[in-house]
């Protein structure tokens, strides 16, 4: 069914495949950039990029390595000051979700010449600022930040994770090169892959879903169902590239239809216990699906086809498809646990029982909770958290 009204945007140019990194120089020049700031957590990928600058009138204005996890406000404000002092004019972010979110914070500050990223928080409230070409190179296949309008930034002083939502945050170019996820350890491949799967499932079931986000979500789920076990068990370049594409597509999907209860609770776990986002999401996904089942059952049933393929879909009676989708997801979690040491409980992610009430109280105020198809109270979230311990 077509919604009464919806909006969709995906402006990102995608470079996917072999030697995509080497084309970053061309993309920067095409956008009039001369001195990019490079933010990276990768080991050496930035050298491939900078060596392709040679002889083209391009030089890195700033290279910042070892970006801390969770994109803290203090780091972003510091990098933004350096960006200005070094005369940078564009941004290249090479890393996982935290690096790209840090770069988005930097982008906001640079484009609006602001001295504090906190002043720009909110949803669709910032106008287009100065033109700062922004290229994102994800090194994990999960966050999808290379194609989303969202940045989650840690306000460490208040123990909060703040959401920044703006179409101006969508990077101009996303680079999916087989080289970037080659050294991804199985544990990280497993957890970030589950994050991508969660983005797609929540995008498909949230209240803001629309036909275009559905198309991206189902395409992502199909690729993840096939390739996530492979990248953890015996990764090939093809499987890695498929997961990178799936992660981006899931990102486009949730960028336009948002996420729901899994992310609301995972953000709270991250804000209060510093739980890595992908681990929290992986543990919470099926518990939250069970909670949503009575309201989202039909939609879950539809997702069995892209996730498990036509044989399993056809052999499962229609009324049992929703539950089958959940059990198939649980089976995938077990494989990832065995092969990739993916945690299956919150207690394995550094969360203790006494923190649960604070997590539930924070989750109920997360923006994602508004878009979950089934209403959740603080008590409901406590129940989910207890089951997930």
């Amino acid at each position, binding site marked *: 069914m077509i919604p009464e009204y919806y909006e969709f945007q995906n402006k990102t140019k995608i470079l996917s495949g072999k030697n995509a990194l080497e084309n970053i120089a061309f993309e920067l020049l095409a956008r009039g950039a001369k001195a990019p700031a490079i933010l990276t957590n990768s080991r050496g990928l930035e050298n491939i990029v900078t060596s392709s600058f040679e002889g083209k009138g391009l030089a890195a204005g700033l290279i910042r390595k070892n970006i801390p996890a969770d994109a803290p406000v203090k780091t972003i404000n510091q990098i933004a000051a350096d960006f200005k002092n070094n005369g940078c004019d564009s941004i290249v972010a090479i890393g996982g979700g935290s690096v790209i979110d840090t770069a988005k914070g930097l982008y906001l500050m640079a484009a609006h010449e602001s001295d504090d990223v906190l002043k720009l*928080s909110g949803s*669709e409230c910032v106008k287009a600022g100065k033109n700062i070409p922004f290229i994102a190179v994800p090194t994990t296949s999960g966050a999808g930040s290379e194609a989303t309008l969202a940045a989650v930034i840690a306000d460490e002083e208040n123990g909060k994770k703040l959401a920044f939502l703006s179409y101006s945050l969508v990077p101009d170019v996303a680079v999916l090169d087989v080289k970037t996820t080659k050294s991804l350890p199985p544990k990280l491949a497993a957890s970030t892959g589950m994050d991508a799967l969660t983005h797609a499932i929540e995008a498909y079931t949230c209240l803001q879903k629309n036909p275009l986000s559905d198309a991206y979500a189902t395409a992502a789920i199909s690729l993840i169902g096939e390739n996530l076990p492979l990248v953890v068990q015996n990764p090939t370049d093809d499987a890695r590239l498929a997961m990178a594409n799936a992660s981006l597509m899931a990102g486009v999907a949730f960028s336009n239809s948002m996420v729901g209860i899994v992310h609301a609770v995972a953000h709270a776990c991250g804000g209060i216990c510093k739980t890595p986002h992908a681990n929290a999401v992986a543990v919470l996904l099926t518990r939250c699906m069970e909670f949503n089942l009575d309201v989202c059952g039909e939609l879950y049933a539809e997702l069995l086809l892209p996730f498990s393929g036509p044989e399993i879909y056809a052999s499962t009676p229609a009324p049992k498809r929703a539950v089958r989708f959940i059990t198939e997801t649980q089976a995938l979690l077990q494989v990832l646990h065995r092969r990739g040491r993916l945690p299956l409980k919150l207690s394995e992610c550094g969360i203790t029982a006494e923190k649960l009430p604070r997590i539930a109280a924070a989750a109920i105020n997360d923006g994602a909770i508004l878009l979950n198809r089934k209403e959740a109270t603080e008590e409901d979230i406590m129940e989910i958290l207890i089951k997930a311990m």
Partner: protein
Amino acid sequence: MRQDKFRRIKYITGKKLLSIIQKSLCALSRTDKGVILELGGFPDGFTFSLDAGVSDVMRLTVRENRLVTSGADDCADLAVAFKDITGAFPVLLGTKSIESAFIEHRVTVSGGIDYAVSFVRIINIARAYLLPKRVLIKTDMRIPDKKGSVFAFYKNLIFLKEEAFR
């Protein structure tokens, strides 16, 4: 021309409805336990604004766990603004929920989204008092319980002068 006339009617009616919502929120912050609980999560002095595309912008400040109206000069910590009155009007009239306005990208939010979520719940409580249940069942995804006296709410809404909420 006809379009212009409709827009003007929406504008005038919207302005009146916004002032009723503003007064309702102030009244409920004195009588409804759900609203009082939500306000406990805001720092004292926190100011919200709601711009519905009519000339008046609703501005409320949290003072000692109650809502009071605040002046146009007060800078809002949380500013919710409709992109156009056509998006705001059904919400003001009660034929659409505030969540649906968020879902349809009809609003922008400046400030913490966690506060915006709490603000949405407060608005929903006010809707539960102001609108008949059969309307809410059709329009709202979440119908909160009323945790205060309906009589006390209407008494404050009708008989208290606006100055009482300053």
